[in-house]
């Protein structure tokens, strides 16, 4: 998964989260940038994401700690493999303590989200014109909708103030 880098053609499939099963049944949460030697891919499967969420909220944990926090019961080996995979993908640091590894996240959730967004945009913007234009027009539209709502709100206030002044004038 992560090591192959993200293929632009698969983007929409990943983005809509409707298919693309990977490894231990994880559903891919998209990520767009090919992985460099140092920088980990920001792509995380659903189980990987659940594990990361636990580590982000609880901090340094062992495999058993993570299993205890998981919403559904999973085998020790499944969680251990997932943690090992996250370590190899540079998402986690680990050290041995009393014959068990203790894992801690290497980046915060915010950093991960930012990297996801960056690489999503970078992946999309380097694609051929129509896709790029589509993304840009979607973004412009989203900003435009926000602006329109804001301007509508301001205009409503102006109308209310005008009405108030009119009533005062009549009174």
């Amino acid at each position, binding site marked *: 998964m992560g090591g192959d880098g993200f293929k632009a053609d698969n983007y929409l499939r990943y983005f809509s989260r409707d298919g693309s099963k990977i490894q231990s049944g994880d559903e891919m949460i998209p990520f767009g940038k090919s992985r460099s030697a140092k920088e980990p891919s920001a792509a995380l499967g659903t189980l990987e994401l659940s594990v990361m969420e636990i580590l982000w909220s609880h901090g340094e944990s062992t495999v058993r700690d993570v299993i205890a926090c998981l919403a559904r019961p999973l085998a020790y080996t499944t969680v251990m493999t997932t943690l090992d995979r996250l370590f190899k993908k540079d998402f986690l640091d680990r050290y041995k303590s009393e014959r068990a590894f203790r894992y801690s996240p290497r980046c915060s959730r915010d950093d991960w989200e930012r990297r996801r967004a960056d690489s999503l945009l970078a992946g999309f913007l380097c694609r051929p014109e129509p896709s790029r234009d589509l993304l840009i027009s979607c973004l412009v539209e989203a900003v435009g909708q926000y*602006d329109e709502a*804001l*301007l509508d709100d*301001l*205009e409503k*206030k*102006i109308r209310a*103030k005008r009405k108030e002044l009119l009533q005062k004038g009549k009174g």
Partner: protein
Amino acid sequence: MTLPYTLRLLCLCFASFFLVHALLGLAAWIVTPSAARVAESMRPRNGARLLLALRLLPVTLAAVAVAGFCIPSYLWLETNEATERVGLACCAMALLGAAVCASSVIRSARALWLSARRSGQYRREGRTLNPSHSLPVTVMNSDAPVLALSGMMRPRVILSRGVLQALSNDELEAALAHELAHRNSADNWKRLALFLAPDIFLFSRAFTRLNRSWAKLIEWAADDDATAGDARRSVSLAAALVQIARMGSGSTASPLASSFLKNDDELPARVNRLLGLAPSSEKPARQMRTVLSVVAALMATLAITVTIQPATLLWVHRLLEQFIR
């Protein structure tokens, strides 16, 4: 490095300028957040004056230090007219000082050139409605949301046909009064002064926040002058702002022009303020202009009194001798 008499003076001037300017600039940068808060709690015009004074203080005092202390003490007391060795630190600071000054001069010249080019373009392509009036209004044949006060010596209001059609008479009158307020307070010249005032270091942007706060306050001040406390006018001005924002993002006529709506982010705050919805924390006027003038006069008097003392110049010269090594 060994330098002759005149180059040594130049080197000392730039190095002293850099040192004094950097120290005062850092001090100004540190107090900027508090100053911006204080300025916002004052009347906008006074708050803007306070921020402008803070922005121009480092460059003014650095220039005073060079012209009032460095040059006289050197010319009067430096007897060695032969070449003399100048330390590396002094040379480095002189180079940095020269670079900082040059960058601000280039930036200002570029802004002036762009402004002049745009003004010329508007004059050629637009139609001036009232050429003999003290504030000419030029209408451009465009639908872009352009409404700005452009030009330095003889500023004019630049208005696009789209804006002219979009605004009602009351809104247009309020918007023009806003631009007139900018002209009356010479805001375009103040913008040029900000361009001329160097930043602390080359390529640093330490004064961005101060500049932004000042720009916000001069818009508020122009709004206040345009409405003059008239509630109906305030509503018309708020409506004009929203109308222009609907036409698209604020267009900048030139770097030295005062645009009616330059920054969309400021729109809600300006509109709410005009409608009286924003909490008003403005303190009563405290004759800021008088206070600032008195402070400036006192400082100038003090500087002149201290400068003409031979003992001061002697002390400065000894300091410069240490500095140059």
